């Protein structure tokens, strides 16, 4: 079973997620602060970390940054009540492989965790919308180092649009006549572009976020 560490400063929420995930994945630890989280993740080496975005002491971004130095291969799924675009984009650009909101059901959350553990990306409809928005707006006069990173392919757009419309990966695969693996590959490619692209909308969001924190 996939091993999971939950990082959230609300103990009620940690207990709730633990109960919901019981029997679906193996929760091996939890943490309430940035320091606790870093220590706990490095010690327990879970497959996936469920990471709250907003926490005292730098929040999820700080956990991502510190763990990246000690355990660069660690996989994170961001789990938050916030759905402000800058929060979402910043946490993804910092290295999280997915983003879901806290209203997600236990079964869906377990599916997302397993998908992350397999090395895929998890996009909620809202995140898909943000990404389409960010890549749709006209690029400014930026030096484009790698044109391939700055745009989504037609197929990737199509997959994202379906996610935003509320389709599951396997439904998208059926509708587009491709395999679920291919859908996952497209989403992972979008994740890579999201993390590496120098598009100024994305950078701006990230920069704003750092200024605020």
């Amino acid at each position, binding site marked *: 079973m996939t091993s999971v560490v939950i990082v959230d400063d609300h103990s009620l929420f940690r207990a709730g997620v633990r109960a919901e995930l019981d029997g679906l994945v193996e929760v091996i630890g939890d943490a309430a602060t940035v320091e606790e989280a870093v220590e706990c993740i490095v010690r327990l080496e879970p497959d996936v970390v469920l990471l709250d975005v907003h926490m005292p002491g730098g929040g999820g971004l700080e956990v991502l940054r510190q763990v990246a130095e000690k355990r660069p291969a660690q996989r994170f799924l961001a789990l938050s009540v916030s759905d402000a675009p800058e929060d979402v984009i910043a946490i993804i650009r910092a290295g999280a492989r997915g983003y879901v909101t806290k209203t997600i059901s236990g079964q869906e959350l377990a599916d997302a965790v397993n998908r992350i553990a397999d090395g895929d990306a998890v996009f909620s*409809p809202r995140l898909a*919308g943000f990404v389409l928005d960010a890549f*749709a707006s006209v690029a400014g006069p930026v030096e484009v180092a790698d044109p391939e990173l700055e745009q989504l392919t037609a197929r990737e757009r199509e997959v994202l649009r379906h996610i935003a*419309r*509320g389709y599951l990966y396997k439904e998208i695969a059926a509708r587009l006549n491709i395999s679920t693996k291919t859908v996952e590959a497209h989403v992972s490619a979008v994740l890579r572009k999201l993390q590496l692209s120098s598009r100024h909308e994305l950078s701006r969001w990230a920069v704003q976020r750092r200024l605020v924190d």
Partner: protein
Amino acid sequence: MSEAVELRRDPSHGYLGGVCAGFASRAGIDPILIRIGFIVAVAIGGVGIPLYALGWVLIPAEGPEKPAVQRLLTRSDTWLVAAGMGCLVAAGLLLLRAWDVWFVSDQILWPFVIAATGGALIWRQSQSAPERVAERAKLPRHTVNRAAAGAALVVGGALIFLYVNDALAPARDVVLPVLVMLVALTIILAPWWIRMVRGLADERAARIRSQERAEVAAHLHDSVLQTLALVQKRADDPREVAALARRQERELRAWLNNTRPLGEATLAGALEAAAAEVEADHHVPIDVVTVGDGPLDEPGAALVAAAREALVNASKFAGPEPISLYAEMADGRAEVFVRDRGPGFDVSAVPQDRRGVRDSIVGRMERHGGRATVHSTPGQGTEVELVMEP
């Protein structure tokens, strides 16, 4: 003026131009000492006033403000008029002296020039058009500076005139004790006065804080507490409770993110508002995702109405699973998808007399130059696709 503290006027801490405060911060002592020095210098022969005026004009102020001389050269209004007035008076008096008019001597000329300049400054200041005065009221520091500079010039001119004509000698016997008493009183009262000024500032900050707090409290009271009370009353109806919680969440988010309020006249805003209404009426959660935005023109309004109808249908027939509303808007083109996870139906088998979908969705879209397509397969839910092209 090395890399230590540069000599700068400090108007924010000063009473007139901040010259004393500037000297004080340069020397690292209490400005009150410098001020006493200046007042004493004024009392003994009046040298303090021209010195102060000189400092005011020549020493640049703290921060980006230019020294007064530069402002005078770059500004076209009050200062220029004052300088011009001074030049005119100087020219006129010099002319009179050249003609050997008896009363014009150096003892009269320069005090008059200074006083005339200051007078012009004050007059110009007070004769501005009312709207300009109102405008200036927003920058009181500036106005006070000019009026005070004018007054200083006039008084300075008068004092110099009296001094050089030896008219001050008897007055000094009266003025000096008064000034000394004033200085003494200032030293005694200054701490209280400073404390009072600070107290006022603190009180103002506290008032602003408490106003903000009251605003937040009022909002929470109107919304969150109200909803929590409703949730407790309806605790036996999970669907109602969930709907209440979602509506409150939506509203609180809009308030926190300070984005456009629900229902503002953009396409995305109208779609979100429609979704919120349908959700409140039918208690089926609706997840709204929008990309881009567009104006809420006539076709846009038709699109929103059609989307709303599709949401209502989905809420009625598709059961409790959340409905997805996805809208993509760019370059005048708008696409809306309303998808549910209900039982679905065979589109071709719907009888022609079912007017709901045909009139309110397909018909409405077509009348405004758009199109609507219903995709549905039994067992796989329904998706209504609405497209409005420019």
